[in-house]
């Protein structure tokens, strides 16, 4: 109900504070050993506010967000499904929270057991031979994956392989990761049905090919039907296949990347395994590898010997691409994923893929019936699909962005817009398996209503949103007149 909230600094008053949270002051004598030249001259400008101020401010701020817990949030490629409360509660047991990352193994058997079993479960789910858990997001997992591909080629003396092929619809992290790994990116087109253009692929591969990065189902929301051919072409050329696991939810328990021929995969545990997105993280980007890449897995790794669990030492893994995080990656996120997988069990896993696909195909069909244009009308949807509003943009001057903003007024988060870039005016819609049919129907009704508005009073749509805490924001101004930190004189 409160639609504005001041910046926390604006509640500040000199000398105010949540003193209850502070240790007793230390005498200056106790700090006398610290050289004056290294000491801070002025206190940092931080808010001076009471505990109630803080609680009230951030509680009110939170209410300005859409979230899974409050809204349908069909953001394509993001798998915004229910994050079970149990995963959070049990990952936050006091003993887990208190455990120092360098604590002795004797006092980490519980945590290690979870990590070991998580590795094992992820192997089974992906059909890979080994799993490492420490990458801290999807892109971080991609980095680990491509770094392993490079290490593999290098280990074989095949130093020239520095090209990574990506389909043009790929997520931005794919080419960016290739660059991070010092590779050159080669984009290849997809055909009219959304499958990789095999001729283009054949033309692209060669002795410079390090590998290809794909997700399947692809970012176009369809299953890559030529996957076996793709694998053959790339493997025959000496390259490896990288699987972007962002779309794993679609095929969980149905088909496995390892079986399709992929050599390495990252999994967005914060998508398929429902750890929270937290307004932008933390995620977890565990990686899985086939036989050939096993020696290169990053550390840390959990191992089991008899009834004891232990960390694998770096010395045991001389070819490892090494450590990618200061400690154990996003350990607490991994615990949440572990809990989620135990809750699902083998039956549940399979259902996830099935019902994510059911919801997507149902929603696609209903939207088609309502007159919307599917980008790939003759294809099955995977767990997501693309609607293009090119017609609306052309005929009514109402864009995908306008539809997206107007949806907010109807109480729905917008789908992903303008990604993948090759489909004009697109909405990439992923309902996930945890939403009811009623919600999907209501979403169709809202989009249909907006379509009507676009025809009858387009201004209502193009000037949306109308009921959010702010109206449409000026992004150009944001980038031109940079205001990145609060200053006492800033306009309020």
């Amino acid at each position: 109900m409160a639609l504005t909230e001041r910046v926390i600094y604006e509640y500040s008053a000199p000398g105010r504070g949540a003193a209850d949270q502070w240790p007793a002051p230390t005498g200056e004598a106790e700090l006398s050993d610290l050289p004056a030249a290294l000491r801070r001259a002025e206190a940092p400008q931080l808010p001076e506010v009471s505990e109630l101020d803080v609680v009230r401010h951030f509680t009110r701020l939170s209410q300005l967000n859409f979230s899974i817990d409050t809204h349908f949030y069909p953001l394509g490629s993001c798998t915004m499904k229910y994050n079970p409360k149990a995963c959070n509660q049990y990952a936050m047991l006091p003993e887990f929270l208190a455990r120092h990352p360098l604590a002795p193994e004797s006092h980490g058997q519980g945590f290690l057991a979870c990590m070991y079993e998580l590795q094992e479960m992820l192997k089974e789910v992906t059909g890979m031979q080994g799993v490492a858990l420490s990458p801290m997001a999807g892109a971080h997992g991609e980095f680990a994956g491509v770094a392993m591909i490079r290490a593999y080629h290098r280990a074989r003396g095949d130093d020239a392989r520095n090209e990574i092929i990506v389909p043009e619809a790929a997520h931005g992290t794919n080419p960016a990761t290739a660059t991070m790994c010092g590779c050159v990116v080669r984009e290849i087109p997809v055909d009219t049905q959304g499958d990789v253009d095999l001729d283009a692929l054949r033309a692209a591969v060669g002795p410079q090919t390090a590998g290809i990065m794909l997700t399947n189902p692809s970012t176009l929301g369809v299953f890559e039907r030529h996957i076996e051919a793709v694998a053959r072409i790339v493997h025959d050329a000496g390259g490896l296949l990288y699987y972007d696991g962002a779309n794993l939810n679609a095929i969980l328990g149905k088909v496995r990347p390892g079986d399709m021929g992929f050599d390495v995969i990252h999994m967005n545990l914060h998508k398929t395994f429902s750890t929270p997105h937290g307004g932008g993280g933390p995620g977890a980007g565990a990686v899985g590898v086939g036989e050939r890449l096993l020696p290169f897995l990053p550390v840390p790794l959990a191992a089991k010997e008899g009834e004891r669990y232990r960390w694998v030492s770096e010395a045991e893994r001389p070819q490892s691409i090494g450590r990618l995080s200061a400690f154990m990656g996003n350990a607490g996120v991994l615990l949440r994923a572990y809990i989620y997988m135990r809750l699902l069990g083998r039956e549940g896993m399979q259902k996830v893929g099935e019902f994510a696909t059911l919801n997507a195909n149902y929603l696609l069909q209903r939207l088609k019936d309502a007159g919307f244009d599917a980008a790939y009308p003759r294809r099955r949807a995977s767990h997501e699909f693309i609607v293009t509003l090119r017609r609306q943009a052309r005929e009514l001057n109402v864009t995908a962005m306008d539809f997206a903003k107007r949806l907010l007024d109807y109480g729905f988060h917008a789908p992903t817009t303008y990604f993948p870039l090759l489909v004009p005016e697109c909405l990439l819609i992923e309902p996930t398996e945890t939403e009811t049919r009623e919600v999907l129907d209501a979403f169709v009704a809202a989009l249909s209503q907006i379509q009507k508005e676009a025809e009858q009073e387009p201004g209502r749509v193009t000037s949306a949103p109308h009921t959010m805490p702010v109206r449409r924001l000026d992004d150009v101004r944001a980038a031109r007149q940079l205001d990145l930190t609060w200053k006492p004189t800033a306009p309020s």
Partner: protein
Amino acid sequence: MAFIPHTRADVEAMLRTIGVARLEDLFDEIPAGLKIKGLDRIPEALNEMQVGRLMSERARCDGGLTSFLGAGAYEHHIPSAVWAITTRGEFYSAYTPYQAEASQGTLQMIYEFQTMIARLTGMDVSNASMYDGASATAEAALMAVRANRRSRAARILVPSTLHPHYRRVALNTTHNQGLRFEEIPYVRESGTLDPAALESLAGEDVTALVIQQPNFFGRLEDVDALTDWAHARGALVIAVVNPMSLALFKPPGRWGTKGVDIAVGEGQPLGVPLSGGGPYFGFMTARMEHVRQMPGRIVGRTLDSAGKGGFTLTLQAREQHIRRAKATSNICTNQGLLMTAATIYLSLMGAEGLKRTAAASHARTRELVALLTRIPGVRAAFQGPFFHECVLQLSRPAAGVLRSLAARGIAGGLDLAPYYPELGSAILTCATETKTTADLERYALALGDALNAAQAA
């Protein structure tokens, strides 16, 4: 199970709408040979009660230690309010704020976070977090290479007293792009960077110098001189700092004559539980002139179409979803929820609370070091002041001593042998404001016993 709300009637009606007979038909584009029947090696589902019991038992295995471990992750008091609010569904279960109008809560929080981190470090701008302190250090090196147009060497000087894991991560992250890291040794007596070693590189092309303050040993570097040294030679300076220490110490923005160029660090001390190593968050700040070279998300304040203030992601042209292969980094998902916790933590602590915490932690560690070095066979490894963490030299092999401490419920510190074999038997030990005098005494007693027992054995 699986949190699926579909009734039998729903499924039937939905299949009918789609025009297929069975769920299986939805997978008809998948080559038949690839499909699997099931996931036999996944255990059967547990219900929440069973999982709860399992996890409670697992957690119990890991409890019961009084920890004197630091080494980059620190046990500080976390106000209850921090996680009570951070785990609110509206923060916890939201995505990256792509639809700004429906994400003003997260966006404004990030803007406040950026402000607090910038003020704490004395830098102009902050991004909206990196994965952790180590990966932030790696990204800072890459950023420095982009930002330092005068240097062509992609050569980064790194003191060997930078956290060993950070050194590894930086190397592992950047070597494929051709970055070279050169380690500057430390002076054995002082445990600080050897200026002579630096001086030997005086005329060469150096892209950036990394300075950790306090360094991995808890020792304090001469940051002003080092910063000026680097700037005088056309190198950028990357500070790696513990944000808690900044309540007491000169912020990197004020090091030397000009201040550093990039300052990064591990945000964990700011309200994030130890939690077995993560999730933590890295922070990254820079001078305004470098903002377009920064990786990661940045939030800016702007106006809406009615002229009202609001917040949005900005400078997105740096990022992978726009710039793709030319982006400043591949980072996408960051550590949003941890930023939320840190922002709440910093709001509760303010400058005064942070200072008291840092000071109390330091005082506690001094007290501990005084107690322990009274024990025969224990002495401080380095001369000179440290901050809230100290290397102790032991007369017996550290590994065995630490094992017997652990058996008495004490994590005595980190064995440095794998990292700095030249130090012989040495441990890095830390106390924070969470430790009582009784805790310190218990440690001292156990350590005395452990050293005696080792002697007897």
